[in-house]
């Protein structure tokens, strides 16, 4: 035994605090885990979605492509239509850009600004992006438009996940 004796009062303080702590943790742990579940659940890898766009109809001019898929939101499933701006680069690569402005999430339009017909334009705060989705310096957005992964099958365009520019 060490010379430092634990008094009866100290012993009771420690044990009661410990037991109380365990009881509080036992109560709170399930509730906190319950609340943060969406953060820890992780995104499910979504499959490629078929669009109605034929690959051969794509040009170097960005085309608006709407595509529908079944979205699962917790207990609620619904048919959702999203949009992409798709074009072919000069060397034949297909680029599909997300229309969601990286400033505050409005929807950008190709050539929406008459003074910059060869750019994407966000009407909310006049954000602009060049054709390859890069944000124009001096306008509100601080990063380039997101990019969809693309796939060709039977001459039809398939769109996959939306990823930050440079990761797709």
């Amino acid at each position, binding site marked *: 035994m060490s010379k430092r004796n634990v008094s009866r009062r100290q012993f009771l303080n420690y044990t009661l605090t410990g037991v109380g702590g365990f009881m509080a943790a036992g109560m709170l742990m399930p509730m906190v885990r319950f609340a943060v579940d969406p953060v820890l659940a992780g995104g499910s890898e979504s499959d490629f979605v078929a669009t109605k766009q034929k690959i051969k109809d794509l040009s170097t001019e960005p085309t608006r492509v709407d595509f529908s898929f079944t979205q699962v939101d*917790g207990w609620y499933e619904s048919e959702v239509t999203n949009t992409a701006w798709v074009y072919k680069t000069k060397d034949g690569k297909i680029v599909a850009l997300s229309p969601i402005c990286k400033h505050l999430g409005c929807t950008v339009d190709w050539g929406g600004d008459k003074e910059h017909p060869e750019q994407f334009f966000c009407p909310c705060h006049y954000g602009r992006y060049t054709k390859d989705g890069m944000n124009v310096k001096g306008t509100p957005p601080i990063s380039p438009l997101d990019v969809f992964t693309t796939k060709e099958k039977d001459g039809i365009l398939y769109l996959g996940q*939306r990823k930050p520019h440079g990761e797709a």
Partner: protein
Amino acid sequence: MLTKIYDWVDERLDITPLWRDIADHEVPEHVNPAHHFSAFVYCFGGLTFFITVIQILSGMFLTMYYVPDIKNAWESVYYLQNEVAFGQIVRGMHHWGASLVIVMMFLHTLRVFFQGAYKKPRELNWIVGVLIFFIMLALGLTGYLLPWDMKALFATKVTLTIVDSVPLIGPAMKTLIAGDATIVGAQTLTRFFAIHVFFLPAALFALLAAHFLMIRKQGISGPL
């Protein structure tokens, strides 16, 4: 009759000191508009509380009809506003009160600021007041989504984009608030409802209690 009931209870529980302690205190002359009309500036804190009480009551009654479900939320708001007697009034109280409480709180803050009433020994009460301000803004923000119309949805999308832009913890915070990493939908609405109706009011009550206890303990700051 009422006196007899009161006396019967008081004889057994001695409740008189409890409320006398709260009710018996003099309003200093310099904060009484009857003496100096300019003292009306001292009313804004009380008005903030008054409107907060209206918000709590009208909100409690709104939940008798409202459902936080994406298929029915908008319909239930439409129904309670247009079909239920006095629905327009009750929802109107909650709608306009939400803006008014911010205005009153802002005026109260300005008075405290320009009179220097936040100075020692009342620094802690200022800090609690600022926390109450944040809670009120959060209440306004979460309540905005609940009618589930276009304005509500897109305002919330913008809010979540702002949260998302916070360095490092932004994306996790956004998912925690929205209930899903990419969708603003069913889980977002239930979350915002729970936060608006249970979590934030609980925090608000605790902070208001601290705010009022401190002002009773320290008293209103002296005249300029």
